[in-house]
């Protein structure tokens, strides 16, 4: 009853020919296509085993060149190269037969009880067992390789002590601990957080069944890694264990966080910014309105989105806005400089909008309108323009020369007064401050300089100063200068704006009046001294006549009175003519 039709090659190590023949006989009975080789000594067997492979080896332990049965058995098992070794023994040797099983043989048979069926069974069982053994070994190796060479970190944990029983190279790589270090550690040594629900995890590990969780571990260098762990219960070296597979999600978590931050940032920019952001189509219908619409227009985003943007735009500005939107068909970005938009209380606000065509971005699919409220700016600009206009009119209307001196850059601007008042042509006028300085009359320079220095020192205020200023023809004009100093926030002088008023005429007039006054003073002096001299004399003489009647020379006194009266008369006549002269002189002036 053959078990297998495959050809078999059997080596029989047997020095006794009779036994060999018997065995050969049995074997041929077992199977037809069987090839039998024979070795009569260990040495011969060794040679045969080195150069050929056998499906099975039958070994008689009583060889002449090898007395030690144990050594012989061991050597043959090694040389057998995974072929089953069946030991043939005599009855008296049953003890060793049993022992030899532990040396790696597949079976032992008693020569005395040998028969074909027994032999066949033993050979085929041996072959089959070896095949299964080798398959098992291969499979084990395969799985071991899967564990060792896995690119993902893996480890095996003792489910009771939580200690590492094995880790793979990827785990060693990731954590920086050596394999030996790992075997001295427990999973708890890796946990990064103190606030992790430790007991819960330990319970999971202890329990049966698959689990997965996300956890943070600390590497040997202190770095934190975030992992997604899947764990399966296994029996490892006879212990209840778990094999875990870790997926390093640190980078992806960080990327996710970065994305989240970026999203939040953009959200904040759009939703919490003061700018009004809208998404609309070419017809002005809205698909998104940022919450700032409440701030800018007084209308909530939820309400505004139901309307068409064009309904809110001032009719005078509507064409400009629509025109800008049409331009987006050929341009990516268009700016609408300023237009008016109606707010909830029917007032107009000025907006400045940047339109961007984002139809090619599927997440937007429309025109993004980014609008800024420039109402205040427009009003300020209007006021500024009016103020400038006023200034220009004043500058033109005044007969004064207006000076505007940029202190820090030493640049002086004049209005046309410098030409009209002083006769300087445009080519003659220099913008340097020194040009102006050297036109001031040398006698006035020091005084003007002191006044200006004082204003600089005070850092504010205005100054009023009179001086003479040289004209193009070399003559001097009397100037009343009123200048105002403009400073920055630190009080440093920036500009000096002044007006130079020609007071030459007034000055001449004053001079005339002063001269006139001098003459009048002269008259007054004459009156008080010259006129009063003879008068005082007369009074004194009369007094004498009155008080001292016994005066012997009354005639002389009377004569003195007459002389004095005549003198007085002459003086008064002189004054009259002098006064007339003075009056007519001043009229001529």
């Amino acid at each position: 009853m053959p078990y297998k039709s495959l050809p078999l090659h059997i080596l029989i190590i047997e020095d006794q020919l009779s036994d060999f023949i018997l065995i050969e006989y049995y074997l041929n009975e077992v199977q037809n296509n069987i090839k039998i080789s024979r070795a009569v000594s260990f040495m011969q067997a060794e040679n045969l085993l080195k150069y050929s492979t056998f499906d099975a080896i039958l070994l008689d332990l009583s060889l002449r060149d090898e007395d030690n049965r144990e050594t012989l058995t061991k050597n043959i098992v090694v040389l057998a190269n995974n072929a089953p070794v069946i030991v043939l023994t005599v009855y008296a040797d049953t003890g060793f037969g049993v022992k030899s099983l532990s040396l790696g043989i597949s079976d032992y048979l008693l020569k005395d009880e040998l028969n074909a069926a027994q032999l066949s069974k033993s050979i085929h069982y041996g072959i089959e067992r070896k095949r299964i053994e080798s398959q098992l070994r291969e499979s084990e190796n395969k799985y071991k390789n899967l564990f060792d060479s896995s690119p993902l970190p893996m480890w095996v944990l003792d489910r009771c002590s939580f200690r590492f029983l094995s880790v793979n190279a990827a785990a060693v790589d990731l954590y920086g601990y050596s394999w030996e270090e790992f075997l001295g550690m427990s999973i708890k040594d890796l946990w990064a957080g103190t606030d992790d629900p430790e007991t819960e995890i330990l319970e999971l590990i202890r329990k049966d069944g698959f689990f997965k969780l996300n956890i943070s571990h600390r590497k040997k260098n202190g770095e934190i890694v975030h992992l997604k762990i899947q764990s399966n219960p296994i029996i490892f070296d006879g212990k209840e264990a778990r094999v875990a597979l870790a997926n390093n999600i640190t980078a992806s978590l960080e990327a996710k966080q970065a994305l989240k931050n970026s999203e939040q940032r953009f959200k904040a920019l759009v939703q919490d910014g003061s700018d009004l952001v809208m998404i609309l189509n070419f017809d002005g219908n809205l698909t998104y309105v940022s919450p700032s619409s409440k701030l800018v227009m007084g209308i909530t985003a939820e309400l505004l989105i139901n309307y068409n943007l064009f309904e809110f735009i001032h009719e005078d500005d509507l064409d400009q806005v629509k025109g800008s939107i049409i331009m987006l068909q050929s341009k990516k970005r268009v700016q609408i400089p300023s237009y008016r938009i109606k707010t909830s209380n029917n007032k107009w606000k000025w907006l400045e909008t940047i339109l961007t065509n984002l139809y090619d971005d599927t997440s937007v699919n429309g025109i993004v309108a980014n609008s800024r409220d420039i109402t205040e700016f427009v009003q300020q600009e209007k006021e500024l323009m009016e103020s400038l206009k006023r200034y220009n009119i004043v500058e033109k209307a005044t007969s004064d020369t207006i000076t505007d001196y940029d202190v820090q850059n030493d640049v002086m601007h004049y209005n046309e007064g410098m030409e009209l008042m002083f006769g300087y042509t445009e080519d003659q006028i220099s913008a340097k401050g020194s040009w102006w300085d050297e036109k001031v009359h040398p006698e006035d320079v020091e005084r003007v300089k002191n006044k200006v220095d004082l204003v600089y020192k005070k850092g504010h205020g205005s100054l009023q100063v009179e001086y003479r200023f040289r004209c193009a023809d070399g003559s001097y004009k009397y100037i009343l200068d009123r200048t105002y100093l403009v400073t920055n926030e630190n009080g440093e002088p920036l500009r000096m704006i002044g007006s130079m008023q020609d007071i030459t005429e007034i000055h001449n007039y004053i001079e005339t009046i002063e001269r006139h006054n001098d003459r009048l003073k002269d008259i007054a002096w004459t009156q008080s001294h010259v006129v009063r001299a003879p008068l005082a004399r007369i009074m004194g003489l009369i007094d004498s006549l009155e008080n001292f009647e016994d005066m012997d020379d009354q005639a002389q006194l009377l004569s003195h009175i007459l002389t004095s009266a005549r003198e007085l008369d002459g003086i008064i006549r002189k004054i009259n003519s002098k006064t007339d002269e003075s009056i007519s002189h001043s009229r001529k002036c």
Partner: protein
Amino acid sequence: MLKVIIIDDDDIMVFLQRKLFQKCGLTKDAITFKAATEAIEFLKNEEINQHFLILLDINMPGMNGWQFLDILKKMKISKNVFVIMVTSSIDCYDKEKAGTYSNVIDFMEKPISIENCNRIKDYVLLKEFFTN
């Protein structure tokens, strides 16, 4: 003894003042000068201890009253000389200026009256010379 000097270019005024001083008992023989320079020359030769009362006109040809005072204040005799400025018309400026000269004790407007003379006799500084 107090010597009284009248300095005035006006003869009649000098004449009147001399008369008045005699009548009022101020002095019998006032010394008179028509020019201030003459008075300076005179004072130069006087005893330092001698006391003088000078009635000084302001407006005179040549050296005027002020110039006379300027020279006087530098002279040794100065501390014993009392000056009364006499002018035909008093103005504030003159009065103010007179205050800057320590020799000047009063300021009078012409013509000098009896009351003026009595006032002179009552001056604290001069009283000792008129008690007889």
